[in-house]
């Protein structure tokens, strides 16, 4: 029997093949979206913790500049090389490496793989009732690209001269001349590896973005119209477009910076550049500003890549735990689309100091202020969704509710930065650090924790422990605020974000705010950071322990409405036993006249219901 006839007579032949896959194909080189999602999840979590550890080291230097780091300080030079922390004292170069790599790793190897790729992969196909992603092999390739990119980034710590040290923004010409000259290798130096690693990360994101968009367009279940999509799916859809269209210009920039380093071109190098007292042997004619434009053309949309999936997760959890439909679903959808569009035309608000002229500056100030409107709409809709709900304070809900004020603080403190007159003062101070960390740290990361606690039962069939979840939540919330709130003060006192000595040698630091000088505030901040590190231990233990020993639960433990909860937990290969059909919107909680307070998307609309709800949509089957 040849292949063609066997396929016809046994429609499930391909499926049978899958069941016989070896361990390697099933768990390592898998094409199943759930396995890939989980791979992304572990990768993202590990990198998040690693990136956070880099920051915990820096916090020592900021709180106790020039002092030897006890115990750990003796041990680190054995890992990172003798020039990093001689006698436990951090060198400026190592400090810079830590800072640059903290930013890079957190954003591109922590949050994006976790928020976009892991949650997107695991949840989106389930929520739209699809058997898998549209292109499973591309999906696998995208995971392995991020894996290689991560390895390259990690490797760069161990080459002579250490990892990249020009900030996560890699501004030229600083970055172009960094890690060159005596003591550095041609390709195997920090900055060049950073660029090469980045190309892999970009490749991964592009492949992922294509896959997500195609999946959402093509594989929605029958009856799942656009306005019946869970908000999380919308958020991922817009996020994917941001990655798809914003990353390539940065890729172009990365290629050019790579050429500057390996082929001695001058894309970003102006003529007459003098480095260490010697004129550089280059043609010149390049433009450092060009790099900034290309970088921020990605990196502003990127900040929405960091936040939108988090908003999507929070939306699901708020509706589920307030037992109410999400308030203003349509305005939420249009807001997220508006944000997606506007985020492409605000990038130069990171470049006020470059003096781009009042007309250009006025344009970008205006767009930046306009983009805060949809953000405010989303946040308001979330708050209103809570109004009058019968709230269940589950662990996911704790994190999701904490997200709201934290994101609020982060967003509101962005407004002064949007005016170039105010930003001339605040730019590159700790104020900016506090602004965006309020959004990504207690904001996005809380949303991610919420999502992990929320969808854990779908992935494993078990719940994570409630008590230890709370033990994780409260100290983390408190520490986050002790860390980031004082940074606003430090910034307003004028403390620069890249100072190696924490502002100790800086004359104005004598000024007191709330009893401490700007410099002295470093100490409580650092302690809060270290304690927050400890506060993650309950999470880590809870996470691994619950995989095997958590409380067994049914397929829909949160009594939720969206399609992923109609699949078995954990879902088998192909996800659903029969193709699901959606008959209604995503958040049908507390419908009047029902005995349960939730109605799942795949429950047909009853005739009586149609009469009662005058607005009932036509049923598309």
């Amino acid at each position, binding site marked *: 029997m040849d292949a063609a006839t066997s396929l016809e007579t046994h429609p499930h032949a391909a499926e049978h093949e899958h069941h016989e896959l070896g361990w390697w194909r099933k768990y390592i080189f898998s094409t199943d979206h759930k396995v890939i999602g989980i791979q992304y999840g572990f990768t993202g979590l590990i990198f998040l913790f690693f990136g956070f550890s880099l920051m915990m080291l820096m916090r020592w230097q900021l709180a106790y500049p020039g002092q030897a780091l006890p115990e750990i300080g003796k041990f680190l030079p054995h890992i990172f090389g003798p020039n990093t922390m001689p006698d436990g004292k951090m060198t400026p170069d190592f400090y810079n490496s830590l800072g640059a790599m903290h930013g890079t790793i957190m954003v591109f190897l922590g949050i994006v793989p976790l928020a976009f790729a892991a949650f997107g992969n695991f949840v989106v196909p389930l929520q739209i009732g699809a058997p898998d992603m549209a292109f499973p092999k591309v999906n696998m390739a995208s995971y392995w690209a991020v894996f290689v990119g991560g390895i390259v980034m990690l490797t760069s710590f161990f080459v002579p001269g250490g990892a990249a040290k020009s900030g996560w923004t890699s501004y030229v010409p600083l970055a172009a001349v960094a890690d060159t000259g005596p003591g550095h290798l041609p390709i195997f130096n920090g900055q060049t590896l950073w660029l090469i690693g980045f190309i892999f990360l970009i490749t991964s994101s592009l492949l992922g973005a*294509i896959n997500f*968009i195609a999946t959402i367009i093509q*594989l929605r279940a029958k009856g799942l119209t656009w306005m019946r999509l869970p908000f999380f799916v919308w958020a991922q859809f817009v996020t994917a477009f941001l990655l*798809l269209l914003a990353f*390539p210009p940065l890729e172009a920039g990365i290629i050019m910076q790579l050429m500057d380093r390996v*082929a*001695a071109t*001058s894309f970003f190098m102006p003529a007459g550049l003098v480095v260490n007292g010697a004129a550089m042997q280059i*043609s010149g004619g390049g*433009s450092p500003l060009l790099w900034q434009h290309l970088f921020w053309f990605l990196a502003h949309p990127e900040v929405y890549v960091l936040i939108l999936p988090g908003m999507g997760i929070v939306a699901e959890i708020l509706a589920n735990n307030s037992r109410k439909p999400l308030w203003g679903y349509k305005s939420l959808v249009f807001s997220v689309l508006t944000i997606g569009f506007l985020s492409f035309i605000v990038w130069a608000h990171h470049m006020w100091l470059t003096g781009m002229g009042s007309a250009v500056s006025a344009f970008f100030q205006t767009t930046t202020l306009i983009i805060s409107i949809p953000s405010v709409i989303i946040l308001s809709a979330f708050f209103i969704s809570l109004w009058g709900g019968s709230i269940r304070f589950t662990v996911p809900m704790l994190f999701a509710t904490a997200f709201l004020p934290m994101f609020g603080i982060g967003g509101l403190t962005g407004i002064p930065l949007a005016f170039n007159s105010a930003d001339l003062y605040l730019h590159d101070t700790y104020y900016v650090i506090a602004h965006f960390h309020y959004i990504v740290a207690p904001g996005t990361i809380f949303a991610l924790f919420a999502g992990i606690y929320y969808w854990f039962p779908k992935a494993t069939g078990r719940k994570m422990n409630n008590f230890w979840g709370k033990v994780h939540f409260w100290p983390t919330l408190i520490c986050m605020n002790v860390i980031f709130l004082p940074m606003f003060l430090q910034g307003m006192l004028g403390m620069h974000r890249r100072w190696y000595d924490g502002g100790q040698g800086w004359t104005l630091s004598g000024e007191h705010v709330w009893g401490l000088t700007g410099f002295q505030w470093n100490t409580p901040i650092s302690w809060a950071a270290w304690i927050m590190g400890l506060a993650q231990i309950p999470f880590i233990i809870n996470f691994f322990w619950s995989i095997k020993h958590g409380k067994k639960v049914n397929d829909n433990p949160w009594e939720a409405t969206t399609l992923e909860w109609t699949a078995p937990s954990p879902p088998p290969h192909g996800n659903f036993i029969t193709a699901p059909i959606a008959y209604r919107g995503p958040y049908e909680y507390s419908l009047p006249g029902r005995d349960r307070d939730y109605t799942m998307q795949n429950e047909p609309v009853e005739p009586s219901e149609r009469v009662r709800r005058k607005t009932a949509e036509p049923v598309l089957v």
Partner: protein
Amino acid sequence: MEIPYTVSTRPDTGLWNAKVGIWLFLASEVMLFGGLFSAYIFLRLDAPPGMWPHGLLNVPVGTMNTAILILSSVTVVLAWAALKMRRYRAYWWYMLATISCGVIFLTVKLAYEWPQKFEHFGAYIKPEALGKYEQYLGNKHAAEKDLPPRLEITGHLHNRAALNDPNIKEYEVALDPLNADPTNPAMDRPHFFPLPVTDKIAKIEKEDVERATMFLPTHSAYFASYFTITGLHGMHVLGGVLVFIYMWLPVSKKLYQRNPEHLANRVEVAGLFWHFVDLIWIFVFPLFYLL
């Protein structure tokens, strides 16, 4: 459940999955080359007068390559149409034609155009020494004619060793026609057919030279963009050719026998990519060769 719409179309979108995928991919490619072209514009507008070279590329060869790529875009459509009509032999020949066009394009680029540039030499003269080399530069003539100033002397470097040997004090250059006869009005504009290097030799003292290199990416922002963009474009051509070869080999015949529509879809997707690669070249050609 199996993944739907891999071959057949989804009723409400009218598309199969890979077609959505390739259009999205092309959108990102537009942004990639868009970034590079914006950089080109940025650098070109920033370039001081006389620092953006003209007429250094071989226009007839570039035109021929343009024609070859356009031709291949036609043949790939014919290949696809042949598949749709289930004429495998015709498909096979059209595919072969497409592949050959791609290979010729790459060969011309890599074996002829680039190496020719690597063999060419240019020396930027220091501002204070420009007068000394007026006989090769003709800046007075250029100023009268409102042409950009001429800061560079180009041609074939006779003493290659001079590039790296500090003991050699001057470059011996067989001049390009422009520098050999700079006041000739015929030299005011680049020629369509490039004129060969003359046998007039100029000696340029290293002291008077600001920077001297072969026509490599380091030569100028112009050649940096040229090599980067055509290099990246060439990699796209190579990628397309490899995919076409795969679709042309016997393995794909097996797919054809099993599910001809699937192969036709694949060719369509690859063809869309190929048209895009072609389109990029349509921008590259005028930007670097003509303008």
